[in-house]
């Protein structure tokens, strides 16, 4: 890729934009949402657009298709696509361009492909609507060829299926196929791998890299610097609609100029960040190492030593029988799961979607009875007793979900959400004081008491959900992907909060995540789930540092990593 980049001067760029600004009539007080944005993408080149949600990266990318949204006002000088002045384009000109010059790949193919039409119909649409081919047989051939190009096996059969019938990886490839069927010069991929498992993510990135090798330009939008490191030639970091950093990937990631870029890089949790505060990270002044970043972080308070066993899971199994219409197949979701969690310990569960992590959490929470085996809480039977018998112990076991918002009653205010979990009665004043002290604990304050959950940001919602869990003074908290939906900087703050409270209060955590970095950063021990079984378990350093099982190895190899991405780039050059 880098070799192509060095030829840049000789190849005419696909897109050249200077001083782009995008605004919406009536929104943001009439001020533009994106200002002063420069972009050049040449054939065979990948430019990455990085930033948190709301930074304007999607709108910017879509403005290259004139699809920034209704009422969008775009201004730039120059604004050239394939050497033509895009400022003079009418709607018909833009339509001719879409699909043939620029192809768009969005995230989550389940909603980004028309669910009522087959994959084949979706891929063929761009070919037939531009009349690139008119003969139905030729259109079909091109469709199947494109499906094969993105690595979909048995294209002829798959073409007749609907998005919901395909696995996440195949679905995303089908979406890519529908964007590249007319051989566009520029592929715009908007978070194409977000919400995919790491191994699937690696495959999808491979498909995109293949397109670049074939000479297409790629504008990759991502919030994940590690994904970008492995594939992009140049990086543009955006924040609040402005470019804060840009340049060749290596320069930006090893010598980030802007504090925000540094924060983005340093806030990524990993084995190196263990025991320290992610959000406190800064760079060693004067460090000039070109391969590794010298990051200094403040340490977290000392962890308490593991104490008595809080949760025991012994040989649990669970299977579900599919409804009659599907043919009464029995699918085993969990098999022979045994582990325990001690006071003051953080035990991680890692695995891909469908590995049984969430079913395990539901059984531990007592929301689902196991078919076999037993769960014991604080030495007392838990899964084997009726709910009435469990109620006494309920508050000792708390839960932090991924999507905090949908776990709140939308009409409850913050104080009601926390108060619901407060044990005992106590006077109104005393309870209020306790709620305020809990909010203080999670970095909020009395001002938030009367706020409605909708009006809170993602990070604040997760803080309220932590305060709610702590209100019950639990012995153990089950956290199911609590930071997966958060931007990297917010994720760092929430992880810091969890880690700090955990070491201070000594509450045990059962922490479920698909993100190996988060697990490595936070957990003492880790359980690796695959197809409903624990394939490997032990101390985090051992399991993730010296993996024994092939599956753990493949998981680790698929995780994008900034350093490794940059090294691979050197090798390619």
């Amino acid at each position, binding site marked *: 890729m880098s070799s192509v980049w060095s030829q840049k001067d000789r190849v005419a760029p696909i897109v050249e934009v200077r001083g782009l600004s995008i605004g919406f009539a009536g929104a943001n007080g009439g001020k533009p949402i994106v200002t002063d944005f420069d972009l050049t993408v040449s054939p065979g080149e990948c430019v990455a657009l990085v930033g948190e949600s709301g930074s304007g990266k999607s709108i910017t990318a879509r403005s290259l298709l004139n*699809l920034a949204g209704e009422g969008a006002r775009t201004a730039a000088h120059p604004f050239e696509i394939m050497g033509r002045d895009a400022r003079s384009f009418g709607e018909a000109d833009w339509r001719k361009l879409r699909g043939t010059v620029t192809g768009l790949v969005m995230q989550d193919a389940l909603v*980004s492909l*028309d*669910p009522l039409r087959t994959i084949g119909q979706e891929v063929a649409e761009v070919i037939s609507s531009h009349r690139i081919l008119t003969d139905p047989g030729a259109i079909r051939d091109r469709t199947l060829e494109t499906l094969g190009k993105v690595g979909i096996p048995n294209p002829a059969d798959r073409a007749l299926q609907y998005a919901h019938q395909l696995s996440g990886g195949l679905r995303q490839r089908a979406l890519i196929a529908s*964007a590249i069927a007319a051989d566009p010069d520029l592929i715009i991929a908007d978070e194409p791998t977000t919400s995919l498992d790491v191994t699937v993510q690696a495959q999808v990135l491979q498909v995109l890299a293949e397109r670049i090798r074939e000479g297409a330009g790629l504008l990759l939008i991502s919030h994940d610097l590690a994904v970008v490191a492995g594939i992009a030639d140049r990086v543009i970091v955006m924040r609040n609609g402005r470019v804060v950093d840009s340049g060749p990937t290596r320069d930006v990631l090893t010598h980030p100029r802007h504090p925000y870029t540094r924060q983005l890089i340093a806030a990524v949790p990993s084995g190196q960040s263990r025991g320290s505060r992610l959000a406190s990270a800064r760079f060693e002044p004067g460090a000039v190492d070109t391969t590794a970043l010298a990051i200094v972080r403040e340490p977290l308070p000392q962890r308490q030593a593991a104490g008595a066993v809080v949760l025991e899971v012994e040989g649990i199994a669970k299977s579900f029988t599919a409804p009659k*219409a599907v043919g009464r197949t029995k699918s085993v979701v969990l098999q022979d799961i045994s582990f325990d969690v001690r006071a003051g310990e953080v035990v991680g569960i890692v695995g891909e979607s469908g590995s049984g992590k969430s079913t395990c959490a539901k059984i531990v929470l007592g929301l689902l009875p196991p078919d076999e085996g037993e769960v014991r809480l604080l030495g007392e039977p838990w899964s084997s007793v009726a709910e009435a018998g469990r109620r006494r112990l309920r508050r000792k076991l708390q839960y932090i979900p991924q999507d905090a918002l949908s776990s709140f009653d939308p009409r409850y205010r913050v104080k009601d959400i926390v108060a619901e979990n407060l044990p005992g009665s106590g006077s109104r004043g005393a309870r209020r004081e306790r709620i305020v002290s809990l909010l203080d604990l999670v970095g909020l304050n009395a001002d938030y008491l009367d706020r409605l959950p909708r009006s809170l940001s993602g990070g604040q919602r997760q803080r309220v959900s932590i305060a709610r869990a702590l209100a019950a003074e639990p012995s153990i908290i089950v956290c199911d992907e609590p930071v997966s939906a958060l931007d990297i900087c917010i994720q760092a703050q929430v992880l810091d909060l969890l880690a700090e409270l955990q070491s201070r209060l000594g509450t045990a955590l059962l922490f479920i995540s698909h993100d190996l970095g988060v697990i490595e950063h936070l957990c003492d021990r880790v359980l690796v789930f695959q197809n409903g079984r624990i394939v490997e378990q032990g101390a985090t350093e051992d399991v993730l540092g010296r993996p024994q099982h092939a599956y753990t190895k493949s998981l680790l190899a698929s995780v994008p990593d900034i350093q490794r991405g940059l090294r691979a780039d050197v090798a390619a050059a």
Partner: protein
Amino acid sequence: MWSRIISRLLTSLVVAWASVTATFLALHALPGRIQDILAGDVEYPGLREAIAAEWGLDQSLPMQYFEFLSRILRGDFGTSYVLRQPVIEVVGSQLLPTVELALTAGVLAIVIAGLIALLTAGRGRLSRELASFVELVFASTPVFWLGILLLMAFSFNLRWFPVSGAEGWSSLVLPAITLALPTAGLLTQVLREAMEKTLDQPFVTTVRSRGVGEFIIRWRHVLRHALLPAVTLGGWLIGGLLGGAVITEKVFGRPGLGTVTLGAVLTHDVPVVLTVVLLAAFIHVAASTVLDILYVLIDPRLRAQ
């Protein structure tokens, strides 16, 4: 998918059987002797005995029930003692004009609703608000009032269409429009709202990014999604068309089930009323069966894998 359709058909048979049973029980729950009820306003020697013999009234209630069931299975709906004719002939001869009217109006309503929704969904505010206002007016206008207005304008003043009767297509135009407009008004509102919801879906952005024109996006992608909530409305729509047809026929002096039903009710011709009730139930069962199958055809996600 076929097993689903077959099981749905079986359920429909059960519902149809239940409606027959309910009709039978309703007849027997009425106060007074059955033969007096069935005779209506007519009175001549030997009539009561003839009715008792035809309906097997001397037998036990379960026997009468089975007799009733088997007669309906054979297509024998009894005799109208008022009209001195088999009920099936009375109803059968009047069914066609009503079905003709209801079908024409139904198709017209769907076409109007589809076109207006396609043209106005997600478009400029003015055209949407104007369309929305007109729809609301039509949806809340009583059928008879609309019919009278149309008669005044197009029959009495302009003399484009006949005032009454059922000869040729020209006599069908005004009744069909009368019946279609209120239905179309409501259907358009449902369709447009569903289309606007669909237009916000991410896949529409994907389709736009393929360079597909705005009308094709609506026609090929969005309309199909919007059909799902519209189909839900289908049962109500058919009920509305049948009920509306009765009134429309009266306003335009058309022959049809409406006229027969009204006459039967006024002359206490109970066998005819019973048959019309059963017919309405059967039509509803058949329609909801077809609609449920339509769902599965529209949305592949509802098909078992």
